[in-house]
């Protein structure tokens, strides 16, 4: 349970003059829930996109489940599930139709499709709503559906980009229950968030600020080294320290 599945080494992404990801190096081990924290524009989404094979890195390397993201993005995609920041399933398809579509697209073998579909529906709690038009679901349900669609092909690694933004606290709690479930089953979950309480749920965290990783470790480690009691306070103090530095 301790081999690294996601490794980045000096990852850099530039858009023209703007450096979105500035020499990020980290390792995530199998089954870990790895959290990515940081203010808006810190580079979290960009890093995730690189790791998913959606963007090519300007410099540096990254491997996901042993596959190099720059050289072998297709292999990477077969091994991951992705939930983007903005809800991106099909509004005008039903819950079941969305699941069916992603089953097909992820290449879930025919014999397993029904089982996976039922599993996703059960996991997301959408069995009653399987025929509902996705557009009509409340925010929390949409997120769960998106998560369900991301795990249909049982990917070893999940990338979740701010999966709970705009969702009420109870739904958020339930969503994290699901993440724990998945982690317990052996999925690696790479999740970005700006909710401080969620930071506490992660096994380990990286704090990003202006493209750089400015803090790395478990919640306990971070609180200790910053001398703060809550992650919120840790966050504020680290950011202030960084701002003072510049």
């Amino acid at each position: 349970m301790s081999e690294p599945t996601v490794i980045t080494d000096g990852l850099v992404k530039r858009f023209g003059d703007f450096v979105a990801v500035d020499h990020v190096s980290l390792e995530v081990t199998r089954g870990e829930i790895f959290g990515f924290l940081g203010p808006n524009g810190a580079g979290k989404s960009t890093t995730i996109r690189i790791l998913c094979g959606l963007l090519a890195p300007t410099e540096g390397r990254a491997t996901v489940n042993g596959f190099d993201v720059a050289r072998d993005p297709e292999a990477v995609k077969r091994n991951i599930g992705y939930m983007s920041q903005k809800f991106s399933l099909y509004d005008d398809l039903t819950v079941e139709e969305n699941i069916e579509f992603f089953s097909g697209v992820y290449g879930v073998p025919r014999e397993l499709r029904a089982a996976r579909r039922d599993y996703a529906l059960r996991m997301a709690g959408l069995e009653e709503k399987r025929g509902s038009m996705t557009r009509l679901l409340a925010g929390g349900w949409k997120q769960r559906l998106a998560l369900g669609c991301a795990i249909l092909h049982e990917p070893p690694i999940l990338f979740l980009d701010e999966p709970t933004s705009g969702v009420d606290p109870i739904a958020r709690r339930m969503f994290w229950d699901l993440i724990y479930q998945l982690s317990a089953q052996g999925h690696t979950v790479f999740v970005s968030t700006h909710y401080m309480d969620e930071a506490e749920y992660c096994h380990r965290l990286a704090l990003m600020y202006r493209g750089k990783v400015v803090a790395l470790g478990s919640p306990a480690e971070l609180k200790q080294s910053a001398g703060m009691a809550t992650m919120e306070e840790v966050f504020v103090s680290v950011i202030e320290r960084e701002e003072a530095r510049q």
Partner: protein
Amino acid sequence: MISFRRTRAVARKEFLHILRDRRSLIAALAMPLVLLMLFGYALTLDVDRIPTYVYDQDGSPESRDLIGRFRGSRYFDVRALAGSHAVIERAIDRNEVLLGVVIAPDFSKHLAAGQEAGVQLLVDGSDSNTASIALNYAEALALAYSGELRSKAMNRRGGGELKAPVEPRVRVWYNSELKSRNFIVPGLIAVILMIIAAMLTSLTIAREWESGTMEQLLSTPVRPVELLFGKLSAHFALGMLDMAIALGAGVEIFHVPMRGNVLMLFAASAIFLFGGLCWGVFLSAVARSQLLAYQTAVITTFLPAFLLSGFVFAIENMPWVVQLVTYIVPARYFVTILKGIFLKGVGLHVFWREVLFLAAYAVVLFAIAAKKLRQKVA
């Protein structure tokens, strides 16, 4: 390798999208139907029942005879006998009549004396097309009447070969009743297919970008080519359905002649449609917003198909610069094929060049679309 399963998933999704999106449905079904109604039923370039006033300054049996000819012809609708030039002028100004026939006061006198009797035709030239045709018909009618008078006079005199030495004998091929609908409705198929091909298809990829679903798609193993084929197949099916509807409506409801090979028609339509679809996908991949994709599609496909393909306006009459431009409008070739199949009943041996061009166009565009999609996606 292309996964059939993934492609099919994309195709099924596209079908659902089209069915559920009101705008797409309108473009896919309503608009072709409206166009069929318009061009099959409402619009025509045929000229007949030309509203006419006659100012008979002579009032003789001969002049009344001539007027009777006008009345009896299906081309003219003699609305009233005007009492003066001014009445005709005012009526033409008011768009009430198109033609004024003025019979000179000494009409019958001149005829009796065996001289030239004058008839003046006043035509509203604003609509040059109708005016030309109206003048043709009116002059032909007067000439025919003149010829008859001559023969009658000769018969009375008892002999003489003063008939017109040469007569034109006109035969019309392919569209003997000269109905404009017969050449417009087949050409309409090209326009309809362009609507599907470009306007509908141009929305698909741009819409995925705009709603964010493209990003989700890209993170999956689906390949650009599978995406292309999946989207193409759904729209292709729809396009062929529309073509069949247009064909059926044209032949059954509007009685457009269909003298050629139906299979050839479907084959040519399939090639044309495929090329157009690839163009639509290309536009959709290049333009990130649906609006832009749609506008570009309209300007580059619908408008040329409408105006520059020979569908309604004859290409041979256009300035040579414009004629050159029409060579790069694929719809032009397709309209030639359509007219050939429907009206002329000819086959590949006549329009093989056009088919070749369309096939080349389809292949090239497929390559471009696939490449562009791959670029944008990778």
